[in-house]
């Protein structure tokens, strides 16, 4: 214990204040001194990420070497972070896969306390582990089989040909890291995600492949071991997957997605500054070369000490680390996206008036093909129609010509959507508002069914010249239940459509007008449709 230096002060006022402060300080020091003594004999009470249970064999040695008994209580990393922020006094220390979430939330840490000291102990990347045949299948469909990416995973998950297990992103860092990795890749900006990048959920396709869930990575591994048929593989920590492989009849092939690696660095964090001595002893022991080697061989995590030679299985290059978002709102949005990602419903109202004939309809058909999975760009593979999604397509002219509902579950249903648009039946008029009314009727049913988010997309190349009037639609729209009104209508301007009319619809419904009209680039129509993906509500 250090003594407080007493210095003379110069004025009575200062002296009085200082004396009071000093008395308080002495009282405080005395109190903490006793507590510290009592507590030092107690174990170091540590909340730890669930997968750290693999350290159990090393704890006895730790306690022997340091004289500190360490008592781990396991929890999902994000769950643990929340508990620590809400009850800063509950644990002496925390040992989490990552403190990224703590850093994001550090505004919730008591203001009068310094942020916890942290010492990274070991690291492991969040990767994908697939059964060999699933890995081969993924490589066959990937544009660059030597550099597999999250876009490849999203594409095959959407197509229904790849399934995986993932820990709950709301509770586990491995789940959150996967969501951040996939969302960063989907945004394709090459920077940390911003709020705008996640305003629409582009992860519907990726999440369609999630067939196995668990609260944390340890239980995820347990669930897979119990039933390997439940998924083609797992997304999780490399260390956990390597450990799991030792117990699997058919080990998983570890794939490090090229476009967004997140590393867990297992910082030990000191929550109660009074336990500093014990903390230092434990950190000193854990970072000593000998312990680092032991940690590596026992838990298959990568040592933090670069001088410790790596096991062969931990060598080899990793993909590029992504820039982890620094905005807590973004992370919340991603967690919500994972939670709410019921299969959505998309209502496409497509103009089949005569002016669409020729080049225009050809482009529209190509666009639908792109959405059905033929666009092999990274964006295209993220935002394609996905397994479980309901796509309702209606063609309109002077009125609604035809309406069909497709449940996307395989290649055949995707072909059905394209075939529907292949019909060469065009009509003389353009009933924009009637089509919109019909689209909202479909949306009402979908909202009532309560499945997932609902989006209305209306594409036209002309001005309204028949059917329902704007005023009549507005009247009926206003009468809809709030949750149906929450469904946004995205309008796509094509050819000679009237931007003012389409903006009016977008403004009324909370959607947006997207311009694929004259003067826009090639591919603007597909891009416009792609921009509406995942932007639904209800």
């Amino acid at each position, binding site marked *: 214990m250090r003594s*407080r*230096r007493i210095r003379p002060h*110069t004025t009575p006022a200062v002296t009085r204040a200082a004396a009071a402060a000093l008395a308080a300080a002495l009282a405080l020091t005395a109190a903490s001194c006793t507590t510290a003594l009592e507590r030092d004999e107690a174990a170091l009470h540590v909340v730890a990420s669930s997968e750290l249970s693999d350290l159990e064999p090393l704890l006895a040695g730790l306690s022997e070497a340091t004289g500190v008994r360490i008592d781990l209580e396991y929890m999902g990393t994000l769950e643990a972070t929340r508990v620590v922020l809400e009850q800063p006094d509950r644990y002496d220390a925390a040992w989490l896969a990552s403190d990224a979430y703590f850093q994001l939330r550090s*505004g919730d*840490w008591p203001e009068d306390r310094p942020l916890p000291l942290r010492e990274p102990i070991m690291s492991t990347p969040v990767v994908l582990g697939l059964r060999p045949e699933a890995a081969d299948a993924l490589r066959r469909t990937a544009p660059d089989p030597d550099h597999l990416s999250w876009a490849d995973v999203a594409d095959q998950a959407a197509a229904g040909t790849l399934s995986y297990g993932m820990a709950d992103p709301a509770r586990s860092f491995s789940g959150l890291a996967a969501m951040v990795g996939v969302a960063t890749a989907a945004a394709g900006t090459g*920077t940390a995600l911003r709020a705008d990048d996640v305003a629409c959920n582009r992860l519907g396709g990726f999440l369609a492949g999630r067939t196995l869930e668990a609260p944390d990575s340890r239980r995820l591994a347990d669930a897979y071991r119990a039933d390997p048929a439940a998924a083609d593989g797992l997304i999780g920590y490399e260390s956990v997957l390597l450990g799991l492989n030792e117990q699997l009849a058919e080990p998983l092939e570890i794939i490090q997605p090229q476009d967004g690696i997140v590393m867990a660095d297992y910082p030990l964090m000191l929550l109660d500054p009074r336990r500093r001595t014990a903390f230092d002893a434990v950190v000193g022991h854990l970072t000593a070369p000998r312990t680092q080697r032991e940690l590596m061989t026992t838990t298959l995590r990568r040592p933090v000490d670069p001088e410790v030679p790596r096991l062969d299985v931990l060598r080899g290059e990793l993909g590029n680390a992504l820039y982890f978002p620094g905005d*807590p709102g973004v992370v919340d949005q991603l967690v919500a996206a994972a939670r709410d990602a019921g299969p959505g419903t998309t209502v496409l109202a497509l103009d089949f008036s005569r002016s669409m004939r020729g080049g225009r309809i050809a482009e529209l058909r190509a666009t639908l093909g792109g959405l059905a999975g033929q666009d092999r760009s990274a964006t295209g593979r993220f935002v394609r129609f996905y397994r479980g999604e309901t796509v309702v397509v209606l063609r309109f002219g002077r009125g609604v010509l035809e309406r069909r509902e497709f449940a996307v579950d395989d290649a055949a249903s995707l072909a059905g959507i394209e075939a529907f648009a292949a019909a060469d039946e065009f009509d003389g008029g353009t009933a924009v508002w009637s089509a919109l009314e019909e689209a909202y009727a479909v949306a009402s049913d979908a909202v009532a069914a309560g499945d997932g988010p609902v989006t209305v997309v209306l594409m036209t190349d002309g001005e309204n010249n028949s059917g329902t009037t704007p005023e009549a639609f507005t009247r009926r729209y206003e009468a809809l239940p709030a949750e149906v009104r929450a469904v946004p209508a995205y309008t796509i301007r094509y050819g000679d459509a009237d931007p003012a009319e389409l903006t009016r619809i977008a403004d009324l419904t909370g959607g947006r007008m997207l311009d694929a009209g004259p003067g826009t680039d090639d591919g603007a129509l597909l891009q416009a449709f792609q921009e509406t993906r995942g932007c639904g509500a209800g």
Partner: protein
Amino acid sequence: MVAFTPPGGGDAIGSGFVAGRRRIITCAHVVSDALGLDRATGATGEILTVTFAHLPGARAATRDARVSHWDPAHDLAGLDLLPGEGRPRGVRPLRLGRHVADAEVSMFGHPPADSGGRWVPATLRGRVAGGLVQVDTAPEATLALQQGFSGGPAVVGGHVVGMLVTAGSGGRRDARVLPYETLRSALSRPSALRASVRDAFSRYLALFRGGPGSKVAAATIGAGVLALTVALGVLIGDALPGGPSSPGAGPTVVSGIMASKEDYFNDAEVIRLLAERGYRVDVTRRGSFEVAQEVIGGGEYDFAFPSGRPPANLITQDRRSRDLFVGSRSLFTSPLVLASFRPYAEALVADGVATPREGQDDEPLYYDLDVDKFVELGLEGRTWDDIGFGRTPSGEGRQNGNVVLAQTTGAGRSNSAATYLALVAFVANGDTAPTPGDVAGLGRRIRPLFEGAGLPQPGIRTKYFSDEGLSQTPVAVIYEHQYFDWQVGQARNEGLDRERVLLYPDREFITDPELVFLTERGKTFAEDVLAEDPELRHRMTELGFRVYVDATAGASGTDQLYAYLEQQGVPVPPDPASLTQAQFPADTGALTELIENATNSEVER
């Protein structure tokens, strides 16, 4: 004895002398002139940084003092060394005394172009108007009592019997001194301290937690510190005793809180050397601004060693405002660098953003980075793939779709990150130090660089030097010594690391770290052990630092470092092609606002 110079430097405008435990006495007009204030303006509470030149062993020392006695009617001022600013070693106060009629005295002052000061023989005559005493220079005097003598003492028999207030016009009989009776009043207790600025600091520091999006209050730091020089004329007394505890007792435990400088104190060899000398250092590691926050918040340490000036200034200013012990010592420094890997450096070279320094082999380790162009890449959102990452010889076949950005430990926490941010701002501002009026717009303009890199990386140095460095941190903002330390270790074991390379910004900051001591123990440790012990100093060089050396003492810290690197088989960085000195925003408040705007913190006003 002390000399006062104008704010911008130049010939002395006056002198002064140490007359009490921590009291310096001089003329009021000398203080006004030194502060650049109108002579009619009150100067009570102003803080001056003073330099004592010509200490034993040709040392110089700076101390800060506050104007605590202000008596313009008598042209008399008293300054107190700030708490924690002890007198330099070997300096003892002069005593005051009465003079007898026609006393032959020695007058001390600083004639033009003479920073050391001179003695002039003179005689004190009778009283004249205004309670002053006439002083005539002796016939043998070669110097007149001119401007630089204002505030200088008249000494007889080791006692100060007067102080020169009017230098005169060059004649021998028109100079005047203030006699003992009046001088004495300037030895009274200092007046009450000015209102504490602590509140402002705590609000400033609130910025450094909570991360982006948290609400913080903006505060402008007051208490400008002005420079003026105090040169000591006469030294009395011996060196003060100091050093470790007597043999037999346990080691003296010195507690320190620091950032990157833990690399020194946690070094096994340093620990061993200190143990031999009876010391052990308890190290707490934090970001430099967290260091300041913790010390200001009441954390008890013997010293704090943030990695740069702004956090060190926060600590000293706060402690001075609260009359707490504080002082500082420069030991070593190391410039800020952008550490990278060969394939990334080659991509930057191919894009004309970096240039290998001349005179290296075909695997250069040192590059000059055009900060302007580098920043432009980030602001335009260009990725490594965009600049041909996969087409360079060492990057062949690689991909990286991330935007070209440097990663830091977080501008709100660490000095390196705040310094890098200030560097970017300096460049984006057209190589001009941002003024308070610039910082809001400028901060917003460079924000994409920091937003884009996302969550700060507290352990960036560990990440960069890990086996996964290439994938984790293509460009990391670190200190040069960390790189040299790594390379010396590599050269000794596996052989020189040819993959990790340094990008030196072509605009450079002097990082100027200071050890800020907070207790007597910390002070002794810093001044008598770290700063003096040859082996401890040599170890600073061995760990890659550039040691501060007295200009007259031979090889510079950089020369010593380079000689060591050469001996260890680590190539020495050739001189840069050109270098611009970058400047921090004019005051800490502006730096704060810059950080806020560049990192998107909300500001509550």
